[in-house]
């Protein structure tokens, strides 16, 4: 009994120490933390704010004072100059949309399909296939671009957006992610029950497996879409026809001589490519941040 009491006493004093520690954090350090965070916030936002404000200002205004937080009234003037030259935001936007939507749909559907094949069925090469997918996951596609370009050129398919979309069918890192998620999320009993009810294999995949995978699909869809939307390297090599340019290639035109002195116009062109992303990001930020965190779990 006495022993018990002393034990409780020790535990009590332990808790007291913890309480003490929690209260006696350094207030100076806390202030420093907030200051650092606020500086980083300004650093993150400032370039975009300057960009958007300058999109509404004239070249003369920008030359007099390049930083201002007050919008001016030259937005439409800048727009007129912007579209009068080779920068065509509508074409870039449409092409980027076609490629990104196509890439996302194909990657999601076929990666989930492949993962389903690896999780649900028992076949001889299953483990070998999974090991292969893990092994090739890290290989950057950029380094085999010369062979890819030569192949596409030979079959006269440069300037075809399909050559940017179709490779998405084989997305090894997404297959890996989907497989890891499916193992925990899709009970085999469900598939068997559907089979007993007479459902075909593709029907089960489309109507039962895909809906269950929705959370994983949402995360992967966002990142695949953004990644494809922002991709510059492959489109830049394959596309030479201005009518096929994606938005990042359009943006790279702003760096050329034709807009050299039109500062407001350059900022407007940049704003037109960044603003849609910023808006979508702010709407979906909760899911995107959660998705980034989830991505680390797979690694």
């Amino acid at each position: 009994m006495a022993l018990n009491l002393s034990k409780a006493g020790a535990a009590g004093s332990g808790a007291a120490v913890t309480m003490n520690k929690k209260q006696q954090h350094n207030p100076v350090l806390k202030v420093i933390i907030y200051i650092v965070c606020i500086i980083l916030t300004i650093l993150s936002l400032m370039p975009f704010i300057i960009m958007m404000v300058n999109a509404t200002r004239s070249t003369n205004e920008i030359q007099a004072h390049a930083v201002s937080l007050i919008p001016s009234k030259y937005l439409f003037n800048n727009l007129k100059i912007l579209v009068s030259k080779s920068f065509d935001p509508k074409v870039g936007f449409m092409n980027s949309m076609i490629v990104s939507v196509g890439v996302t749909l194909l990657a999601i559907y076929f990666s989930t399909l492949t993962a389903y094949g690896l999780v649900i069925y028992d076949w001889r090469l299953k483990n070998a296939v999974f090991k292969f997918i893990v092994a090739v996951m890290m290989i950057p596609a950029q380094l085999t671009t010369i062979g890819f370009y030569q192949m596409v050129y030979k079959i006269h398919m440069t300037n075809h957006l399909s050559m940017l979309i179709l490779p998405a069918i084989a997305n090894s890192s997404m297959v890996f992610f989907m497989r890891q998620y499916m193992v925990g999320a899709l009970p085999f009993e469900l598939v068997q029950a559907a089979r007993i009810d007479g459902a075909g294999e593709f029907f089960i995949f489309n109507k039962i497996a895909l809906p269950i995978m929705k959370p994983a699909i949402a995360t992967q869809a966002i990142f695949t879409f953004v990644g494809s939307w922002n991709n510059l390297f492959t489109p830049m090599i394959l596309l030479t026809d201005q009518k096929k340019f994606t938005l990042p290639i359009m943006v790279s035109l702003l760096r050329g001589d034709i807009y050299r002195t039109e500062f407001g116009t350059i900022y407007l062109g940049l704003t037109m490519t960044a603003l849609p992303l910023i808006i979508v990001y702010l709407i979906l930020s909760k899911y995107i941040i959660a998705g980034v965190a989830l991505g680390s779990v797979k690694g």
Partner: protein
Amino acid sequence: MKKGKFNGYAKWGYIFCIPFFLAYAIFQLYPTFYTIIIGFTDLKGVAATDWHFLKDDLFANYKFILGNSMFRKAFGNTVKLWVFNFIPQISLALLLTAWFTDRRFKIKGEGFFKVVFYMPNIITAATIAILFSSLFGFPMGPVNDLLMRFGFIDEPYNFLIKKNVAQYIIMFIQTWMWYGYTMIILISGVLGISTEIFEAAEVDGANGWQTFWLITIPNIKTILLFTLVTSLIGGLNMFDIPQLFVFGGGPDNATMTTNIFIYNQAFKGSYMYNRASAASMIMFVIIVVLSALLFYLLRDKDEKALERIKKEERKAQKIRAKEAAARGQM
């Protein structure tokens, strides 16, 4: 037994994986082998598709690239640009992770800061590159304007023609784009550590510094490795930012990376597809070897640590058994 495995459903496993492998073979495997082959041929010139294996010296392209001062410089730049953006990036991310996950601070607005810090990562790199080259514009870019208004400099400074400065700015952009991403990943790793360990450390009187180095860091080692490897692969493939921030490799080619070198070899000037392929393959080998090495090193250490722990446990058990035996004898 074999019949049991091939229970009529096994074929569906193959069927469901066929599209992946078909696309993989066409769009990745074939280009990979094609790139390897082109590296040993004379394929060059605009719109050229015919090629022959090199007759005199099969490795002539590789020898040219390895001996080429521009390629070496580009490789040096790439490594430098990666190392000096990774160090500040991981340091800042670790610092913020330590602050945000320390329950003693209870930082308000953590969600807001996460959203803001990650935002640059979601914007098109091409847009970021040109935005920064406008911000650092000369003579009247916003950065010059700010520096002069606050009296740091008297005359506008031409950032983009100084080779070191151009490199520093690219390192800054890369850090600025990626520290938020790294931070979110590290925070999620720390949140995955059992809270009991932290409570135990607190009871034992560990301060924040000790807790961080002795508990947090060892427990997120795998995630740190993941960050290191993905950042390394991305860094060795750096293209968008340096390509568009300053044109043509920058002042004295100070911002020329290997991928810009490859791009310039293959799609500019004399269209040397063969040399570009050789350079690609050299980078390919470097990346595969480096990431395999990193994985191997860490896995080895983990196993060693496990063995050591087991050994110590066994020793402790023996000692305890001996003590018990001794007490029993008493």
